């Protein structure tokens, strides 16, 4: 008997407290122990997790009107500018924004100690935030200046909306040049001094549903410690299955998610301001996606192990910045996690920049929410583009 289940059946079991929920790590062990078919029949939901810096993140804010009213033209939160080219007291604060007087990279490498991501963290921590706005004044919105202090509870709405999160896979970055470089994948020492990678491998959400059979618009997820939803596919969503020269499949890469949720129910443990030396400020985001085991094929993909999943090794000294195509080969997440890989015949120490322990904790939390009946699965309104759609990135002229 094949393991065909529906969302409704799985949700009925969740409500009855009878659903079998395992983390992606636990599924791997179960498949090894009992075989795929048996595991697929037994398990209803697989939980995944990732905790990583995700620059394409930010929050839509509605401050409410002061008296007299204002049509904000420029707005700053703790001196970090937010975009207010939308309605009067609406703004979007981006995670990677920095104060106008930040020294940036003038003394390279810049520290980027504070930015939009840090403001978002402090909002969630209910810390007071200085709000400054200027305006040109209209008949209906006469005020020209505002200087006040807000907390997250004082304002109408704060909606986290991240246009590109949860990257399915990422390059393993190395540096072939003879100087230290400062990248969004951390500090890379010269002459292949280290190799940095950035996904949770076998726990990472999109590596577990490579053909987007279950993740789609409206999928309910763990977002920043609260509940969120998949809003759309992320920007730069170009899902594909990687292959080497011989045509051997090396696991998926290229998918991304746009996610949304109410910031007011999130927690600062899972949304943290982050500073990349020489690169910029950002926000580290915790995301967990539940995968319903509707059939055996979904279970098979969800049971992919670190040794089945690969990252391309790319030189960030020269090739990446100049968009020179090609890789220095592929390495599996099992190799990356062993602490060393071989690149161009040289042994290179590896380090992650994405937290595996926190990814594991997210998968566990999501599992317990489902087991306790607090979190039901949603059937997507529409599935996301998959590798079969063949989306390809464009090059800017």
């Amino acid at each position, binding site marked *: 008997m094949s393991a065909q289940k529906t969302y409704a059946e799985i949700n009925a079991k969740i409500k009855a407290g009878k659903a079998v929920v395992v983390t992606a790590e636990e599924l791997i062990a179960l498949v090894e122990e009992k075989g795929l078919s048996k595991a697929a029949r037994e398990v209803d939901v697989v939980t995944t997790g990732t905790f990583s810096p995700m620059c394409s993140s930010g929050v839509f804010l509605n401050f409410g009107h002061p008296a007299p009213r204002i049509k904000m033209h420029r707005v700053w939160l703790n001196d970090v500018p937010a975009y207010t080219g939308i309605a009067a007291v609406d703004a979007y604060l981006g995670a990677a924004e920095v104060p106008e007087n930040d020294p940036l990279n003038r003394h390279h490498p810049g520290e980027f100690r504070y930015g939009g991501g840090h403001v978002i963290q402090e909002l969630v921590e209910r810390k007071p935030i200085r709000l400054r706005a200027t305006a040109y004044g209209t008949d209906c919105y006469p005020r020209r200046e505002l200087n006040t202090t807000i907390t997250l509870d004082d304002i109408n709405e704060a909606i986290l909306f991240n246009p590109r999160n949860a990257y399915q896979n990422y390059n393993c970055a190395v540096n072939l040049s003879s100087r230290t470089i400062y990248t969004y994948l951390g*500090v890379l020492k010269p002459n292949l001094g280290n190799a940095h990678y950035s996904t949770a491998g076998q726990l990472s959400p999109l590596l577990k549903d490579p053909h987007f059979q279950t993740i789609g618009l409206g999928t309910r997820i763990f977002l920043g410690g609260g509940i969120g939803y998949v809003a759309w596919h992320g920007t730069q969503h170009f899902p594909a299955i990687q292959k080497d020269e011989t045509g051997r499949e090396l696991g998926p890469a290229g998918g991304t998610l746009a996610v949304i949720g109410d910031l007011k129910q999130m927690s600062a443990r899972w949304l943290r301001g982050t*500073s990349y030396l020489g690169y910029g400020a950002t926000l580290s985001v915790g995301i967990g996606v539940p995968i319903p085991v509707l059939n055996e094929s979904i279970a098979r993909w969800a049971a992919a192990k670190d040794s089945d999943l690969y990252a391309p090794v790319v030189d960030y000294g020269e090739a990446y910045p100049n968009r020179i195509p090609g890789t220095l080969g592929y390495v599996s997440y099992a190799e990356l996690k062993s*602490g060393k890989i071989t690149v161009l015949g040289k042994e290179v120490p590896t*380090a*992650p*920049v994405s*937290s595996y*322990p926190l990814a594991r904790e997210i998968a566990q939390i999501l599992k317990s929410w489902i087991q306790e009946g607090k979190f039901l699965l949603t059937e997507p309104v529409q599935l996301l583009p998959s590798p079969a759609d063949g989306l390809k990135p464009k090059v800017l002229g």
Partner: protein
Amino acid sequence: MAPKRIFLRFSADKSEQPIIYRLVKDYDLIINILKANVNPQKEGTMVLEITGDRYSEGLDYLRRQGVGVQPLIEGITRNEERCTMCGACTAICPTGALYIKRPEMEVYFKEDNCIVCQLCIKACPMRAMEVQF
């Protein structure tokens, strides 16, 4: 209050003055002189260990007298609240003081192996590694 170590630099005219005496008498500080040196140009350097509640007032006094004051780095600590165990410091740390326990992938800090090179301070994206003075 735990004792703190500071490094002082005096110009020739200051070496003559009873600055240490004032620190003890006016600011109730317990002073332990760990190193002291006066060069042929009569410029002095000194490493002090200071204990007392009015430590920062004492330091302000020294600065007002034109004495160069620099806290000595005591060591490096990890702020456990801030550390997300991402691992980004582990291939940067030259001594393995910051290391990953496998297969759990948890990041640990073994202070005994730390040589206070401070490379991790800015390389840590969460600013979890802190210098202690």
